[in-house]
């Protein structure tokens, strides 16, 4: 029973982290109908930026300052990176080409940027795994009843939930959120109604990337190392989470993330413990067979 509860807690924390990254995929898809494959590399790059910032701010000696400061610096840097990627890689392609090309060209560019960033990281930082400073002290835990949970895990879960609720409020309650939703429904109409589409898209990239940065720093604080290929495994799971929840749907991405996190941890308790991703993909396929648009997605019929 203890094992099960522990796995559940770990799964929720892991899932919250996956959800943070999944949100970036989902938001960008919502406004641009583009799968931004470079997103997982933004995650990886921000892990490095977070590491350098954390260390510069004193690391384990000043946990609070380093933790908060490092995370904020990583988030700012990541949003700049997101905006740059959009400006350099995707915007020049927008509205060009015809038919299926309008979708495929940016997709290929996204893959290209992903490879570019991964190799750049290897060049800049080396292929070596870099250990993160231990902010919470090794083995620190929070007690709830007689269950002990790792402090890092509790911090991750709380931080992620707070941020996700904040995002939900932004999208539902603010002018920016409204323009974003308008853009996602119909770009042409949104522009005619006076929405500055370029600015909304750039902001979407900035927010998505900074969420990935938050996820990256939390991830590394919990799981200890940064390395150039770290975006691959978490990126895959986050992408699956976004699709599972219904890509383009923000609540769906959160739900998908938590679901995948918990499912993954449960598999680890069975004798098929080496096949977490196999199960994750089986679940994805099953869900898509029943609900092609994902759990919370709505299948829209495109009008011709």
């Amino acid at each position: 029973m203890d094992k099960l509860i522990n796995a559940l807690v770990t799964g929720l924390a892991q899932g919250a982290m996956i959800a943070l990254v999944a949100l970036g995929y989902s938001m960008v898809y919502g406004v641009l109908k583009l799968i931004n494959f470079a997103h997982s590399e933004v995650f990886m790059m921000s892990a490095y930026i977070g590491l350098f910032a954390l260390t510069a701010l004193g690391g384990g000696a000043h946990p609070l300052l380093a933790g908060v400061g490092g995370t904020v610096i990583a988030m700012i840097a990541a949003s700049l990176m997101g905006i740059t990627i959009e400006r350099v890689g995707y915007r020049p392609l927008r509205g060009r080409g015809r038919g299926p090309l309008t979708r495929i060209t940016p997709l290929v560019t996204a893959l290209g940027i992903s490879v570019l960033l991964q190799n750049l990281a290897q060049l800049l930082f080396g292929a070596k795994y870099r250990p993160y400073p231990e902010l919470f002290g090794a083995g620190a835990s929070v007690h709830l009843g007689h269950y002990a949970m790792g402090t890092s895990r509790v911090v991750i879960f709380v931080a992620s939930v707070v941020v996700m609720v904040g995002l939900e409020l932004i999208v539902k309650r603010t002018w920016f959120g409204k323009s974003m939703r308008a853009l996602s429904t119909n770009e042409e109409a949104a522009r005619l109604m006076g929405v500055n589409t370029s600015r909304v898209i750039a902001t979407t990239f900035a927010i998505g990337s900074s969420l990935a940065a938050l996820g990256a720093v939390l991830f590394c604080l919990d799981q200890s190392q940064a390395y150039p290929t770290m975006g691959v495994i978490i990126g895959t799971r986050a992408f699956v989470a976004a699709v599972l929840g219904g890509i383009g749907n923000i609540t769906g991405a959160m739900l998908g993330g938590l679901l995948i996190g918990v499912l993954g941890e449960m598999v680890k308790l069975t004798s098929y413990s080496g096949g977490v991703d196999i199960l994750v993909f089986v679940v994805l396929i099953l869900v898509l067979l029943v609900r092609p648009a994902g759990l919370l997605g709505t299948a829209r019929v495109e009008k011709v």
Partner: protein
Amino acid sequence: MLKFGRRALVGAVAAVSVALLSGAGCKPKGDEIIVGAYLSLSGPDSTFGTDTREGVDLAQDELNAAGGIKGKKVKVLYEDDKSTTQEATNKVQQLIDRDGAVAILGEVASSRSMAGGLVCNKKKVPMVTPSSTAVDVTKDRDYVFRVCFTDAQQGEVAARFVHDTLKKQKVGVFFVAQDTYSSGLAQTFKAAFQKLGGEIVVDKGYQKGETNFTTYLGDLKAANPEAIFVPVYYNDMVQIARQAKSAGMPGSMFIGGDGWDSANLLEGAGELLEGAYFTNHYAPDVPWQNSQTFVASYKKRYGHDPSSLAAQGYDAAMLLFNAMGRATEVKPEAIKIALAATKDFAGATGTLTIDKDHNANKPIVVVQIKNKKFAYSTQLLAQ
């Protein structure tokens, strides 16, 4: 002239490139013997390749300073396979066909040694791998040899050490499910440990690339093992050690294989793993005369302790040079026969004899992590 400008230009470029290519592959002068080495000098495994090269370089210079082989100097040509198997195949072909190498050294990763070994076997040129431990590397490959132990030998020795020396009866096993090295070593350990009368209380594989080990560790801990055998690479081990600490498991209960051997392990989790043991090819303070001579000259040249990859690179080159000296002539076939006849060759990583399967019969070192350093503990011969 203008009209044919483009065609003339293409022709000129082609001519120049042909000249350059043949220039790059210029045959050596008659007074040098060419040995080819293919290594991962760039890409994710670049430290493997560069460490090995330092050892090989040292061997080459020592040999040439002592007069070379049969009055000729030996030149080792390096090719970078960029840590990929495709390039390993290409580079070995180049070294043999273009450069006329009489023998090949390489690789570290078993997958790339398999690829390169296939080419060597087909072209009937002997190859010596410094550190590929997978059993299949030399299997049915008449021209492929190794100076390191195999995973089968390593797993058996680790099991015997845990059972007989550490006196543990209930042991867990934790490995990467999708990795040949890790799961292979785990299987041989398990079989050997059970044969000795020990009990495997928990046996878990994890997914390659996994970074969150909390749930796995909770499961391992619940089975109450006295020790856990974790034959994984050092990067994963750093994460496992850190998360084990949070799970309240002492680092000293972990036992590893030669995948642990890296300064990065000490940097990332040296304190946490204080007291843990792992099987290895060598330790900087191993009490063998040859090792100490090697460590001294290596330190003098490079200014730091050699890794075991460097020591094995040195041994692979030295074994090859030794066989070339004993061969009736410096040609691939004769070198291969001499390599197969190697007996009691004293290397930096122990005294070895090449057996009928072209594997090295040699002592395996058990290393303990002490004060953030690798310290020699004991040595065992595989049975």
